[in-house]
């Protein structure tokens, strides 16, 4: 599966060397070694595979989808999935059945993967970066700045997450962008906490003293010396949190405060299916399974990344 196994052994030796000969070589070698140890974790590779598949599906949704996700056909509403015995064999298409407006659930799921990826990417870009900034500045500066920033963090942490997101969406107005913003606003405090804790352990270490003795200022120390050491634990935390973020987005969608109809957001689809859940189980179950699969994939990958990146155990 990996590229290097099929390529000539020279490249492998080049990547595994203990004596790199250039900057790029050293970076490639350390990346390759991290990749090798991640590859050894089969569950993490399964998670990574599912997520890569999600990206491909989102990119090719218009090609893969058997029909338009928005086209309604009330005559064929609530068609069961193809393997159900009570389905009229004359009906074509609708592999995973249709919803209450006769839209093809499979197509909606495929298009919905774009929304899921959009939410996940935006939240993953916003929350950890805000948290990293706040946490490292608070941890490195100490004193009153630390007190102010951490008490603000505490205020955010004191609310139940979904309730706070609900309040934000209610203020900002319903919609997918506002849902993303609300989730990010509620997601950053734990990252700030982690980043601050890491910074506190790093800031008094000899290698930080050593670079201070070269006349480096706080900006350089935070961005070039503290961030690289915080990022690995944040990356792990982000992948583990992704499942929660998808669920929060789905939850907001379910409550009607996230994606608005007719957008095929998975949480909103479950919400629509709720009305028919006793007689027509597939309408809510299919998007539920999609959310479950992607959440599980993020969790598996996060576990694997923790084994690779966590500097506290292992050789580094």
């Amino acid at each position, binding site marked *: 599966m990996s590229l290097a196994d099929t390529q000539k052994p020279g490249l492998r030796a080049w990547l595994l060397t*203990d*004596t*790199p*000969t*250039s*900057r790029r*070589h*050293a970076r490639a070698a*350390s990346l390759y070694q991290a990749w090798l140890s991640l590859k050894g974790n089969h569950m993490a590779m399964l998670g990574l595979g599912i997520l890569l598949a999600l990206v491909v599906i989102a990119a090719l949704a218009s090609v893969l989808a058997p029909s338009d996700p928005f086209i309604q056909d009330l005559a064929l509403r609530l068609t069961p999935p193809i393997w159900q015995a009570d389905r009229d064999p004359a009906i074509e298409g609708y592999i995973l059945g249709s919803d209450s407006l006769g839209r093809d659930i499979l197509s909606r799921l495929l298009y919905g993967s774009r929304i899921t990826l959009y939410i996940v990417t935006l939240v993953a870009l916003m929350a950890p970066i805000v948290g990293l900034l706040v946490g490292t500045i608070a941890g490195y500066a100490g004193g009153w700045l630390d007190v102010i920033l951490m008490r603000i963090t505490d205020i955010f942490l004191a609310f139940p997450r979904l309730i706070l997101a609900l309040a934000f969406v209610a203020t900002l107005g319903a919609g997918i962008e506002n849902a993303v913003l609300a989730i990010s606003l509620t997601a950053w405090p734990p990252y700030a906490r982690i980043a601050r804790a890491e910074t506190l352990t790093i800031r008094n*270490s*000899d*290698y930080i*003293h*050593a*670079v*201070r*003795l*070269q*006349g*480096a200022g706080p900006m350089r120390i935070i961005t*070039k*010396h503290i961030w*690289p*050491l915080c990022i690995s634990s944040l990356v792990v935390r982000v992948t583990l949190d992704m499942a929660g973020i998808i669920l929060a987005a789905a939850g907001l969608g379910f409550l009607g405060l996230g994606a608005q109809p007719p957008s095929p957001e998975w949480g909103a689809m479950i919400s629509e299916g709720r009305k028919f859940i006793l007689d027509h189980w597939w309408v809510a179950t299919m998007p539920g399974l999609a959310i479950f699969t992607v959440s599980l994939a993020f969790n598996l990958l996060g576990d694997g990344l923790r084994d690779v990146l966590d*500097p506290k155990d292992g*050789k*580094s």
Partner: protein
Amino acid sequence: MSGIEIEGLNVWFGDYEERVDAVKNAKLSVPKGGSFGLVGESGSGKSTILRAIMGLAPTWSGKIEILDKPVENPRGRDFYRAVQMVFQDPYASLHPRHSVDQVLSETLSLHGFKDIDTRISKLLDDVGLGPSFRFRYPHQLSGGQRQRVAIARALAPEPQILLLDEPTSALDVSVQAEILNLLTDLRAEHKLTYLMVSHDLAVVGHICHDIAVMQLGEIVETLGVEDMRAMRTQHSYTKHLLESSLQSAAG
């Protein structure tokens, strides 16, 4: 010309009831080009004096003069170009995610050097590491090699004074000798002034011309290394220290 001149130096941690006086009224003077050793048991405040000079100790009072100029607070870039420090534990003093090349090139660029590539090769050569070490990460180096990198980093700004905080205590004995010889050679080659902290009298005797003995934050005696070898001491603590050192060497 004097290299380091310290008088009435007090360093303390904490305030009020929690105040701990780590260094009390210390006085020492190292001539330019000299090499001076601070000895004493752990906790006697020897490393704290080095940290106070470098500006790493938060609270201090007294006089610190470097090359006949009182130090500014906070220390400026000129200070860091003149004075550098080698830390005790080479496993803690190198950034785990930075390669040797990154460590040295960042140091050189911070000090405004232009010909960074040639200087890095020269520095690695100076500390006895070949060019093959340039792109390695700390976890690919042994303790002695790491300490050589740390010494190269301290030498990068071409300082005149090097503060050595027990540079060999974290290394095993065979490597200790290599590092000590390297330090002796570098001092001769670059005309450096050394202020070295150690609890090992043999190490200090190998490197230094004068030593000061510290006990409980105070310098109890300053003597030449010849006097130390001949056991000509004034203070009972110095005698005790020398005797226990001889015993452990004999045993």
